[in-house]
């Protein structure tokens, strides 16, 4: 991570096709989605959602790099900050949930229905 490396990466025409970053981001997004669908532990689902958000962040950065526009980086900044708030609230909810039900298995927490 020396300045030489990053500067070289920035100045030069990208050695790696930018689509490659998009594909990596998309794959990570799909993995996160799979986690959100298949996991039963609420915390794991939450983790998967975090992964999805990071995958999207990567897409934003890739597009920002491709367009040379800092707006993409700003969006990522905001996503990160919102994720922090979301994690604080989400985890607090899980703790409260666990205290009430002694479980965080989403299959067992289905009392919010008709």
């Amino acid at each position, binding site marked *: *991570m020396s*300045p*030489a490396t*990053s500067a070289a990466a920035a100045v030069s025409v990208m050695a790696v096709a930018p689509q490659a970053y998009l594909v990596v981001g998309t794959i990570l997004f799909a993995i996160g989605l799979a986690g959100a669908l298949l996991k039963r532990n609420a915390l794991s689902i939450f983790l998967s959602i975090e992964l999805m958000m990071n995958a999207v962040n990567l897409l934003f950065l890739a597009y920002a790099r491709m367009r040379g526009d800092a707006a993409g980086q700003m969006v990522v900044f905001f996503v990160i900050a919102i994720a922090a708030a979301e994690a604080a609230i989400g985890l607090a909810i899980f703790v409260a949930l666990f205290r009430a039900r002694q479980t965080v298995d989403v299959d067992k927490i289905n009392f919010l229905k008709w």
Partner: protein
Amino acid sequence: MDPLLFDALAAIAKILFVWAVVLAALLPNLVLLERRGAALIQDRPGPNRVGPFGLFQALADVVKMFMKEDMVPLYADRLLYNLAPLITMIPALTTFAVIPFGSSIPVTIGGVTHIIPLVIADVNVGILYVFALTSLGVYGLVLAGWSSNDKFSLMGGIRSSAQIISYELAMGIAAIGVFLAAGSLRLPAVVAYQHHGTFLGFLPHWNCFPQLIGCVIFVVSAFAETNRLPFDLAEAEAELVAGFHTEYSAFKFGMFFMGEYANMVAASALIVTLYFGGWSLPGLALTGLWGGLASIAIFAVKTFFFIWLFIWVRWTLPRFRYDQLMAIGWKVFLPLSLLNLLWTGWLVLASGGRV
């Protein structure tokens, strides 16, 4: 010579130099220093039998650690159990990459003079890199605590995670003041900013003077971040046996031990860089070969003082209670650090960008 090749060689040389100093020379002897210091404070001789003044004690300790039996608890998560000490050690050592430990040294090869800045990597996100790495360090303790499958360890792990996250906030916000004043996130820029000029006409232009509150918060938070007394709640031998490393022995235990000292050295270096002028001394230009070497020495002396402060405090102050620790972190340091930020911002504004 190819400049790229030269840069690479210089970087490798700097890495080797730093690690040699820290790993080989400093860390083992810090144990001795700690033990002799403790003895001094407690008015007893301390280890003085191995070698002259007990200087070989460090060697003896290392040998002992290698010789001991390496035990793994039966129901431990073996992978994480083995990984944890490494995770503790590595971030502490990689932190040194961005800390400027001297001004610069000119090297002439084939008639061309290269100025080698004495910092391994001048990253433009400087301090953020440091915070990123130290925030990874907490995983070592947490995972050690969890993977041991031991109640005391788990307690230590939980404690350290909450403690480090809490104090990282105050520490980060206190550090923002420094970068606000220097106008850059790069650590060499911070040192350069402190190198010249004076504060109030007679004090060195060091950040610790205008930002006294921030400096104090940063130093105290550094104690908490490194799990040193009076904030060593994660091991707290009176309550948790040995906290997160209760189940560790032999070389892995040694890694934790070394990690703690490496963190201590890194924290001291960081405090010196941010608040006490780094390698600079007021009134000295510190250029050229001898200047470069002198700057390394200045940096070493300053850092050594803070290392000694760590040891001094450890053997002087009692441990905090856990709720007190949290209360101080959130209710005192966090607001104070915000206050410091406000004050620094005002200072920068009032002085037109140059404090």
